[in-house]
């Protein structure tokens, strides 16, 4: 068991290196000039050269990569070309908001997905099943941008119940669970939750239907076990897969929140990335992608380890 864990943890090192290299290279291959974020359009070439020196953009790419990696190892990802603030401060400040959003969306998506999936699986073929499956397909298909706009029009513009944008009064960048802040979270979290809701619903439905067809369920019924107890057995078998799917979804949500954060001006990593792309803010782009990728790698590792713990067959496999 420990060798599986060790092997799985060691995999992270080459993955991290590859991720660093790819995110650095891809960002540099994209069109545009990082100087656009730093100097005014009228700046003469000597000013551009002066700022290039100050930011290290004048050095050869391999040297820039080497410097970036050596600093990154020490926790320094440089400074934003657009606003001069430390990339780590910017990314972790935004990551907090994105995590909050992703966790809220996951909780909504996971709880609704499990409930809907279990119901649909138990009553396979029924009207309820068809409605739930329709919802699930809609959940994974509906464009976030459109749904977000729709919710804003209904709940912000028309009913004036919930704010349409921002993350709160902005007095603090710490975790804050006062209503003045939480009300800002509702619409983006609901918008973002439809994908995990759809994915989890479909997974749980398929798993429940599959397990119900197993002979051991028949055997349990034959032994006279209450349906509630049988349900617990089913859930126990579904849990590792549902958890794995949800873990991956959380990772996807961190990366895919870009549209939702843009619609709701939610100051997370998605909005940070969106702005960095438009401003050609290379340090922010590199830093955000790297941290999100590492987060995704860590999340995958955690899901694998937890899954292995729950289901010993995985370690043997």
């Amino acid at each position: 068991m420990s060798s599986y864990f060790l092997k799985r943890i060691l995999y992270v090192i080459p993955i991290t290196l590859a991720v660093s290299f790819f995110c650095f290279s891809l960002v540099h291959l994209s069109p545009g000039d990082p100087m656009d974020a730093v100097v005014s359009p009228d700046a003469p070439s000597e000013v551009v050269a002066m700022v290039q020196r100050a930011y290290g953009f004048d050095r050869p790419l391999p040297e820039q990569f080497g410097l970036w990696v050596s600093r990154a190892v020490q926790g320094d990802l440089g400074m934003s070309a657009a606003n001069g603030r430390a990339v780590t401060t910017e990314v972790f400040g935004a990551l907090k908001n994105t995590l909050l959003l992703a966790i809220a969306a996951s909780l909504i998506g996971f709880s609704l997905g499990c409930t809907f999936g279990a119901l649909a699986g138990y009553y396979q073929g029924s009207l309820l099943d068809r409605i739930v499956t329709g919802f699930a397909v809609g959940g994974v298909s509906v464009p976030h941008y459109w749904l977000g706009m729709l919710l804003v029009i209904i709940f912000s513009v028309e009913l004036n119940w919930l704010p349409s944008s921002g993350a709160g009064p902005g007095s603090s960048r710490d975790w804050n669970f006062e209503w003045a802040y939480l009300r800002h979270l509702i619409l983006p979290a609901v918008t973002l939750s439809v994908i995990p809701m759809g994915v989890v619903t479909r997974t749980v439905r398929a798993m429940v239907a599959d397990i119900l067809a197993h002979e051991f369920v028949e055997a349990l019924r034959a032994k006279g076990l209450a349906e509630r107890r049988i349900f617990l057995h089913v859930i126990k078998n579904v849990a590792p897969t549902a958890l794995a799917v949800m873990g991956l979804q959380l990772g996807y949500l961190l990366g895919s929140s870009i549209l939702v954060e843009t619609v709701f001006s939610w100051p997370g990593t998605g909005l940070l990335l969106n702005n960095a792309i438009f401003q050609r803010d290379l340090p922010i782009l590199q830093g955000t992608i790297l941290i999100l990728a590492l987060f995704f790698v860590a999340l995958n590792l955690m899901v694998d380890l937890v899954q292995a713990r729950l289901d010993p067959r995985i370690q043997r496999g």
Partner: protein
Amino acid sequence: MVYKKMVTALRHLRQAKRVALVSVGVALFSTPAMSEEQVLRIAMTASDIPLTTGQPDSGFEGYRFLGYTIYDALINWDMSSAEEVSGLTPGLAESWEVDAEDSRIWTFHLREGVTFHDGSEWNADGAIWNLDKIYDEDSEQFDARQAGNVRGRIPSMDSYEKVDDYTIQFTTSEPDAWFPYQLSFLLFSSPAQWEALGGDWDAFASAPSGTGPFKLTRLVPRERAVLEPNLEYWDEERVPRLSRIELIPMPESSSRTSALLSDQVDWIESPAPDAIPRMQSQGMEITSNPYPHTWPYQFSMQEGSPWLDINVRKAANLAVDREGLEAMLGGLMVPAVGIVAPDHPWYGEPTFETRYDPEEARRLLAESGFSPENPVEIKVLISTSGSGQMQPLAMNEYIQQNLAEVGIALDFEVLDWESLFPNWRRGAGDASSRGAHATNITFAWLDPFSAFYRFMHSSMAPPNGFNWGYMNDPEYDRLLDEARVTFDQTEQDAILAEFHARMVDDAAWLWVAHDVGPRAMQSRVKGFVQAKNWFQDLTPVYIEE
């Protein structure tokens, strides 16, 4: 349009549920009623809070909200009139003059009795310290970011020195009558505050100190900046009436529109055009006023370009139905018949009338052997969006159709803004121009250098300036050179008017539109005077419940 349809469809839902839901909803969720405090919440188009150290980034929106609010220049913009084109007015300098013997030397007499927000005194030492922060790379206070933001705006700065405690002197690299315009971009930060914060510009950004009418009291990066009035402001007529301004970055126009409609903010920059009728029906005010911002096609004059033929240039200018375009944009533009508008002192008296006359356009093209069946083929670089580009795709498609009707076939090379913009300085001959004959980039102009010189003077060909198409006309150069060394304003205006008229007669570019700087606000926002300027004065604004 989609937005409008969705709103219409949802209105039925709202009507059915309003009675039952609103009373509960209001009680549970509604935005708290504003107190008697005079708070103005503004949604900017910027994606972050512009730099607050003294020389803002984020273009002129940065200067508008976090430049001229917190800081002053030696010479400020007079933003008090909605009718007249904005001019310059004394700021931290009470007066200035150019040396009669050597017109490169400018003497500035600084205003006495002015203090920074931290209470320290404004004087010549503070002025020199600020100049060093921009120009002296060896000084402790040198800041590459601030230098990058402003040095390009003052191209003729050569040296500066203190004369006495309230007098400083500048020397320009060559005689330059436009120098005062350039100095309006140089903003002065407090040396004492910088020292107190350990000589750290990042720390200064969170607790800046200038001499302007507002003080920054809170900054949450990417989320909010809060300004409060400087009740000690040296210009008593411009002491703010508001008790607080909250500046919120919101780059998406649909987000800004929703935020205004849901009463989350009081004022938005650049509302979505299709939401304007809805805003007006709710009693909101839409303000607009033409300002120095032009939407053109800049022509390539390189060998092989179809624009070398003046008939083609004139025909293009005669083929665009600018009034139709204005209607398409919901009235949020003014037809452009030159770089500047006819009511501007630099417009002059051109003989060629830039108007909608497709018949005449066809006649001119026929003279050159072209017709709708045998069109002149032109490739244009355009962007999908971008800072100040208005509605580039829709507008370009409209123009494409107009021009096709007379015999000019436009082929668009569509780039994203971040690729189009750097190409501007690389020029029509650069590989990144992909053989294009024109580029469509809007631009700001406030002074003769930014309006004419950088585009039309042959010395400004790439990589020196934005003469993208390599315009090279000795008469243009002569007039611009003459205007630059004419220090009498009336005489200078007359030369510029002659230059501009000549440019219109040459149909040197395709002029399409002037922007009108639309902004929308709640009806309770009062006192705003929209200057014919990129910059606006927030000091007279107040809230009337």
